[in-house]
């Protein structure tokens, strides 16, 4: 009897935990419907590909709709959706106006799916046993990547990190060599905080770097940093956590030293006003609890769909991603969307039409 009570108690506890985590609006898409297409194709960003793969395999098991997603890169995702060769695209960077103008199927919507953060990492042999991590500011990060700060014992760095005073070594700057959403978030941050960076380098998935070595992929940057004494680089947060790289603190817009916790990343998009089209970089967030180098990753869909069966399947899938799907994010080291972003994305999702009528099934549209 006692045993059963404990089990019941545990089940209740687990259930309540699950309920506490679930996003309102979850649990509405539970089975396939007759008039929806049984397969969808998408292509684009590689950063969220692990999460998307998990989502789509779960979705196929539960709903019976197969989603074929190819992580070919954000540029390829934008090109594919513009040419209408896929049902949805995916990108780590919001589309630029000229790209939107090139879309063959009319107006494209940006639906954020999850959040990513980029973190500075470094290799200073003298500090390898130190518990304390280095602290960076907007000024020192842009200075290092512009090539204005060349040594670790630069007074600007020493001001926040007294332990660097003795490190009279050149900084080996490492950046991504391949085009990447990670680079887009990193350079958007530098653009937001430094006029010099904005005017000379700018932001994008690949830029002309004033200094440094390029490593291919997160693993290339991490490998370079690990291999090269006195180097620093930037990688996706999940990558730094998995590989136990030293991660620097960064001073955010409110002047607080931040660590890139999931909460701090999520905070970047809450407490700030999101524009209704959600086509926005979240860097240098005004939220005092926010990690400043964060961003959304989006799925791109046409607002006016033409195939009714596909439109039903697609909008139901996106609803599931935005609500039920968020529960999978944290275990895969992604950051769930804040509630405000889910609400705004759901509102966008409801504007999708097929041949003039709303595409989202009414039980979801009226939620």
């Amino acid at each position, binding site marked *: 009897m006692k045993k059963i009570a404990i089990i019941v108690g545990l089940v209740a506890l687990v259930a309540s935990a699950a309920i506490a985590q679930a996003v309102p609006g979850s649990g509405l898409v539970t089975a396939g419907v007759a008039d929806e297409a049984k397969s969808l194709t998408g292509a684009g960003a590689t950063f969220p590909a692990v999460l998307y793969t998990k989502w789509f395999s779960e979705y196929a098991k539960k709903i019976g709709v197969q989603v074929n997603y190819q992580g070919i890169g954000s540029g390829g995702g934008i090109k594919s959706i513009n040419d209408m060769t896929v049902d949805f695209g995916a990108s780590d960077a919001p589309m630029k106006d000229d790209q939107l103008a090139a879309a063959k199927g009319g107006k494209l919507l940006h639906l954020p799916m999850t959040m990513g953060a980029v973190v500075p990492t470094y290799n200073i042999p003298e500090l390898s046993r130190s518990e304390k991590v280095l602290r960076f500011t907007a000024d020192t990060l842009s200075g290092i990547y512009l090539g204005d700060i060349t040594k670790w014992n630069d007074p600007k760095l020493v001001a926040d990190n007294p332990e660097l005073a003795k490190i009279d070594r*050149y900084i080996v700057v490492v950046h991504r060599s391949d*085009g990447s959403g990670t680079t887009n978030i990193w350079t958007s941050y530098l653009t937001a905080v430094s006029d010099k960076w904005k005017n000379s*380098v700018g932001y994008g998935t690949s830029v002309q770097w*004033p200094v440094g*070595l390029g490593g291919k992929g997160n693993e*290339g940057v991490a490998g*370079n940093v690990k*291999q*090269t004494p006195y180097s620093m680089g930037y990688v996706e947060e999940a990558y730094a956590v998995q590989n136990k790289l030293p991660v620097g603190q960064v001073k955010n817009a409110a002047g607080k030293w931040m660590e890139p916790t999931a909460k701090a990343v999520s905070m970047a998009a809450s407490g700030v006003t999101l524009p209704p089209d959600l086509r926005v970089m979240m860097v240098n967030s005004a939220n005092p609890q926010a990690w400043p180098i964060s961003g959304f990753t989006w799925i791109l869909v046409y607002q006016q769909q033409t195939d009714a069966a596909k439109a039903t399947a697609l909008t139901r899938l996106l609803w599931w991603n935005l609500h039920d799907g968020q529960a999978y994010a944290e275990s895969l080291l992604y950051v769930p969307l804040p509630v405000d972003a889910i609400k705004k994305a759901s509102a966008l999702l409801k504007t999708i039409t097929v041949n003039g009528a709303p595409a989202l099934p009414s039980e979801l549209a009226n939620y």
Partner: protein
Amino acid sequence: MSRSIFSRRGAARAADPGDRVFAALVAAMSSVVILLVVGFVVLLTIDSMPSIKRFGLGFLSGSIWNPVETEINHLNFGALPYIFGTVVTSVIALVIATPLALGSAIFVSEYAPSWLGKPVSFIIELLVAIPSVAYGIWGLFVLVPLMRGTVEPFLQQILGHIPILGALVDGPPFGQDLLTGGVVLSIMILPTILSLSREIIAQVPRLQKEGMLALGATRWEVLSQAILPYARGGIIGAAMLGLARAIGETMAVTMVIGNSSTKIGASLFTPGYTIASAIANQFTEADSEIYFSAIVELGLVLLLVASVFNIASRFLVSRLTRRTGANNA
């Protein structure tokens, strides 16, 4: 030469219908290859038109590759740093690999007893089967630290004070630079050159070698007077095949070359970039039409660079074989 024998035989037996069908079949097969090449060039040219129109020859001579338009720094695509990196790393690879490959080929086919020569050549040829990304990982984690910590400081010590050679080893050794890229490439093309050279040396007629020996020649004299002159054209051909592989090699080089297009300098310790690496790195995220077009034009330029090397090598082979009178090429 073997090809010409083939066609002559075909002409003599043209009456046989089965032979005619076969001739038509193989002709169709080879025309597919030619069509592929033509289609390839046409498609690359069409897709690179926006970039060709906008940048013209500046694409080849410009050294600023900036995909982002900003206030001070305008969008521009100039491929010179990539072309430079490709040519320099390929030449380094060739300079290192050819003597090594030739030396081992001579050892394996002329000096080593067969119980030793066979396993040695087998092991070296196994290197061909290693995927290039594995070379890249090995390069990044083993070769790069070795170059940075040992080889490059050593080179600086011995060459640093010599006027012209000193410029080649100038600057702080990062370990990720043109030299390391070239060294990785040389290891990758070594087995190609080696196995071809060994085959060619084995083709040298026994009579010529034995004739020399009968005249009282030493082993070295047989090698330098009979074998090498006979095999010279073929060995150069082998080296050029290795070079072709070096020019197009992508992953391994990308992982060790530093991927930086900001500086073209004399020093081999400068981080560089090759055309193939640039395509592999930037293609997936080339998000504007002109950027995409510039990347495709890089492919066209790579084809051009490879053709230039190829034509030059054919010219070299034909010159050399004509002079020595050897006709086995």
